[in-house]
């Protein structure tokens, strides 16, 4: 028994670091960015902590963060959804169109929520039902939505539409953004950590066969995860549309990639599983947005920011996605 005692005593520092290298790296990335921009930007005569810059930061981060938090439920299961960008686009378009016809945003939002349910069923349920990998239906959804969006804007005869009568200035408030984000994070963390939905999502990502043999209903819980994510996407679409009060045929383009990059920057394993965390979405999207706001402030030419972001992304991936060794050979 002497050994057991020794074990517990030896665990702390080094072991903890070894086990949590991903967390350390992802939080480290965020802290590094914050420090860098806090120290360097004043030299250039600007401050990242100015109200204006914080507002820009918040508006930059809000849509990605809201989406990424929802996407954690999908990524945790080891699934990918590449239709997210187009979903945002169609939601934003519908909100503006219905807003202009009815004079209120509510019908548009309700319709989008219903629509998100349809997408959740297609993306989440068709996999287990027809035995196909879930990225396939999401490709189909993406393409169908692209087609619909093209037709809609062709019929309208314009490339962008704007809210005419509704006052949308409230959605520009950084405070509201912060509050909504915090509420969404709180609800998501609760569902992810303290209910079967999140626990099962992680288990499904780690070992689907064992999950099913332990009584996890793949169909039911995959559907639930896609539904939760869908609601988060609708909320994100509201802010995407609300910031400018408009939607266009290019709204949402590439968002699914922003989500992927944010999640990886935040330390989310791309294959899902037990190490999935909601915090990855938050940390990742803030790092991502900070780079966007901060890099030009420290004097990096705008045309270079993509390269700088790619380099930072690469470094984080090298640290977080490395194969973990050190398990007993059996």
């Amino acid at each position: 028994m002497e050994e057991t005692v020794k074990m517990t005593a030896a665990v702390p520092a080094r072991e903890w670091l070894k086990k949590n290298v991903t967390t350390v790296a992802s939080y480290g990335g965020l802290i590094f960015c914050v420090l860098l921009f806090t120290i360097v930007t004043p030299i250039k005569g600007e401050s990242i902590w100015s109200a204006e810059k914080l507002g820009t930061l918040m508006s930059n981060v809000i849509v990605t963060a809201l989406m990424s938090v929802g996407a954690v439920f999908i990524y945790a299961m080891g699934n990918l959804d590449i239709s997210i960008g187009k979903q945002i686009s169609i939601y934003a378009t519908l909100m503006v169109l219905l807003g202009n016809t009815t004079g209120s945003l509510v019908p548009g939002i309700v319709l989008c929520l219903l629509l998100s349910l349809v997408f959740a069923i297609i993306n989440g349920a068709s996999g287990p039902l027809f035995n196909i990998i879930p990225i396939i239906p999401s490709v189909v959804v993406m393409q169908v939505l692209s087609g619909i969006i093209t037709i809609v804007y062709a019929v309208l005869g314009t490339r962008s539409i704007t809210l005419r009568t509704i006052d949308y200035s409230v959605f520009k408030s950084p405070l509201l953004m912060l509050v909504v984000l915090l509420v969404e994070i709180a609800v998501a963390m609760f569902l992810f950590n303290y209910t079967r939905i999140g626990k099962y999502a992680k288990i499904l990502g780690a070992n689907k066969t064992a999950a099913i043999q332990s009584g996890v209903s793949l169909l039911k819980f995959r559907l639930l995860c896609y539904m939760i994510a869908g609601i988060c996407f609708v909320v994100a679409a509201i802010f995407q549309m609300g910031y400018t009060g408009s939607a266009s045929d290019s709204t949402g383009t590439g968002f699914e990639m922003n989500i992927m990059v944010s999640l990886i920057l935040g330390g989310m394993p791309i294959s899902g599983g037990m190490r999935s965390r909601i915090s990855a979405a938050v940390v990742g999207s803030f790092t991502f947005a900070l780079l966007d706001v901060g890099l030009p402030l420290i004097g990096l030419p705008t045309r270079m920011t993509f390269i700088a972001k790619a380099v930072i992304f690469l470094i984080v991936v090298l640290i977080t996605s490395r194969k973990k060794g050190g398990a007993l050979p059996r």
Partner: protein
Amino acid sequence: MGEKVLQIRHMRKEFGPTVALKDVDITLNRGEIRGLIGENGSGKSTIMSIASGMQPPTSGSMTYLEKPWHPANMVEAQAAGISMILQEANTIPGVTVAQNIFAGHEKEFSRMGIINMEKMYREADQLLEKFGIDRIHARDSINHYNFEDRKLIEIVRCVTDDTRILVVDETTTALSLEGREILYRLIHRMAEEDDKTIVFVSHDMDEIIEHCSVLTVLRDGEIVGELSRAEMDAPDAVQRIRYLMVGREIGEKYYREDFDSSHGEEVALELKDVPWGPIRHFNMKLHKGEILGFGGLSGCGMHEIGRIAYGIEKPEGGTVIRNGKEIRTPLSAIESGIGYISKNRDREALVLDASIEQNIVLPSLRSLEKGIVVLPGDEHRMAEKEIESFRIKCYSGRQLVNTLSGGNKQKVSFAKWSAKESEVIIMDCPTRGVDIGVKQAMYALIEQMKKDGKAVLMISEELSELVGMADEIVIMKDFEVVKTFKRAPDLKQTDIIEYMI
């Protein structure tokens, strides 16, 4: 005995806080079949995994063929002549048998970057023939072969003319009688005719005693004894080795000692006229308080019976019934009080990346719910209770399952259903890859389950445990029941084997 091939001095290996090897000295000689025996977690696999380049030691030195030996990986070790056949499957799915055998050696068959597949197939077939394996063909996709055949293919891949040390790590647990014979012939030929060194890692004492020329016993990361051939032939050798392995007398009680095969009247689980694939019209009744054993060779259909009874495989007709309700999915099985321990522990029974606690509570999460909330405190209490009652060796319930040894992993898969308080347990090879100490505990547990009125469906490839534990043994062959045996003091394995093959 020949000259020294590999010398290991003061080897130490730590995995985080766990010390797998303390300070091990061992010398391997030419022409010997060296047995390494010890309980799970004794470090017996670790020694050779270090020598064959799978992982580096924490400290210590190795001398191979009179030169310092620091293999960077398994490929380097294999090229230098140290090959290891692993416990778990290690073949590449989706390609042919020949591609598996010559994986990494494609250059030998290629000209200007194009591989001559005909030549590869021809040579692979010749190799298979040389090993006496005629039922495997080089052109076939490896997916057509079962676990056992893949193991044989792996052996063919590992062993070349340049092999000086062949490490066979618990391989025989995956092999049937025929596969074992092929392996035994091979190691004897290599050691006795070609003067090569075989390291035979196992915890099956009969096998070790029968085939090894010298035996090293490990316990808790230390060498506790070495036995010569003469010592292994001594009448008390089994007791002596067992004592060395466990470090205490484990007593004579191993299997059940009673021969009372009575059980409750109530049917706990019934298969009615079930067809599935090659299985036709299968009927079975499992009663409360009964241990029903299923035996046969690995391809006889007995594993499928367990999977059908648990709702994993959908029967093409007939019904699986418990308490008047039909079982269609694992979920409905669990809800009606059935638990299932898969033969494929690492892939189906456990989530290796999850903690012990997360694994134990997994089937019970639904019953732990308060509204929709699962409180961490409830999960923790449930897991702690099982960890304690099963004596799972760990420093905390948060420890990941993939850091546990085989026996402790198996305890976790039992604990899942004990926590769920399942009334019917279907166990497929419950003691596969588990050492004596844990086995003894498992048997005691199964006996207790019977006493508690639980129903146990015990599917096993080990006849001795069926004879030792089951009230009734059903023997299957070619997907049919060929014979059933009642529990009896004079029932012998040899009486049963003839019905199996």
